[in-house]
């Protein structure tokens, strides 16, 4: 509905319209670019997005039914005509057992810089093999202290894919850089790692803006650049089609810093329902 013809500063009001999908295409691109480059803007967008999603799930309504036309004559006693029947189905997420088997893969790939992928893969193993003992994160929440380590990073909520955020850590990588590692666990043994790290553009940059796939055995990883950050999402054994759908969704959201839209959430649910559980 709104455009930004004056190219003025990006205000809190504009960020709200951006999160609500109320800006025109040119303004979306402008704000998305600014958000990707500015940690403070990214923080604001994350806060607005979180508030939206919390509010959207806050409706604690008793089931409503259509009125009986007879109460046209009996409005003095509204309760007489109200409310019965269908119950509100509360959403619940059940946690399943972890797969505990060790997965040791030498993750070298022709298309991606080998040490970067190896680092990401080692980090994945680090939390996923002994996930219950190492879990430091309240399920579904990410500690703000971790976000501060890489404030421009966008950490998506994957509950639409029945994956719950259960691990967050910050790991030193080359030089003084730090990578943010986030682990998600599914209800059928799947574990996903998302690693975000600073990736300054350079002539030997192994990352492109489009997703690049690396595979080894039943393990897969997609890597890409979003602004000045690199993202690697990894899985061991997740159904390839499901993982691709998931990676594409995360790829998109990492660029626009917005939660999944309803179409994407539906696609994630469907791909999960169609896929086989992850092997133990």
């Amino acid at each position: 509905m709104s455009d930004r013809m004056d190219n003025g500063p990006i205000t809190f009001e504009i960020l709200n319209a951006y999160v609500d999908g109320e800006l025109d295409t040119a303004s979306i691109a402008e704000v998305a670019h600014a958000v990707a480059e500015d940690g403070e803007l990214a923080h604001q967008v994350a806060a607005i997005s979180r508030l939206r999603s919390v509010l959207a799930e806050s409706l604690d309504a008793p089931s409503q039914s259509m009125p009986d036309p007879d109460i046209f004559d009996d409005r003095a006693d509204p309760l007489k005509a109200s409310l019965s029947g269908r119950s509100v189905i509360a959403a619940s997420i059940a946690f399943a057992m972890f797969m505990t088997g060790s997965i040791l893969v030498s993750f070298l790939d022709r298309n991606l810089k080998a040490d970067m992928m190896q680092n990401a893969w080692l980090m994945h193993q680090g939390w996923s093999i002994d996930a219950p003992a190492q879990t430091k994160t309240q399920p579904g929440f990410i500690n703000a202290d971790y976000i501060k380590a890489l404030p421009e990073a966008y950490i998506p909520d994957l509950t639409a894919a029945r994956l719950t955020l259960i691990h967050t850590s910050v790991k030193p990588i080359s030089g003084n850089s730090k990578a943010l590692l986030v682990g998600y666990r599914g209800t059928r043994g799947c574990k996903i790692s998302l690693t975000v790290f600073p990736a300054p553009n350079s002539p030997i940059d192994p990352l492109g803006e489009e997703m690049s796939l690396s595979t080894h055995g039943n393990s897969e990883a997609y890597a890409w650049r979003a602004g000045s950050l690199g993202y690697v999402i990894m899985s061991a054994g997740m159904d390839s089609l499901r993982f691709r759908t998931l990676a594409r969704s995360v790829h998109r959201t990492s660029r626009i810093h917005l939660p999944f839209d309803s179409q994407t959430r539906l696609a994630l649910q469907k791909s999960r329902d169609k896929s086989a559980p992850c092997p133990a």
Partner: protein
Amino acid sequence: MDTERRIETYLQRLYGYAFSLTRDQHRSEDLVQECALRALSAKKTPTDEPAFRAWLFRILKNAFLDRLRRNKTAIAAMEDVNFSPVMEFWQGEERFITALTVKIEMAKLPLSQREILTLIDISGLSYAEAAETLGIPTGTVMSRISRARRALLEAVESSNIHELPVKKKAGLALK
């Protein structure tokens, strides 16, 4: 789809909106019923779904205002609160935005802010649909929702109700 079925798909969201206006379960249920009845008895209904949705929410709002007038309740409660036009960024921490705190603090907001938050964030109306429902320009919706969210974020941030911090086990310190 007939009108009854179309209305049925919005009953829960209408209840959410009604609750934001009344803060009372029974009065909200009553308002939803009255809204549905008024909609069912209308001679014409919008065929376009967004227009139909905005029309339903407007009916509910009108039913609420009618009751306010009947009860001689202060209409001033519906007036928007004046805020500074400068909308600086929120400085709080995202981890404080939890379901419990949001719910508690939202109930303390002025009616106009609860209303816009409910229409946009809970009922899922677009700015244009909310503007149509409230009878205000779309630009006003844009500023009103940002003010309401900011107020709620600040209330959440300063709330003394927070989830307990997660204990960190010894030996698990980050490098």
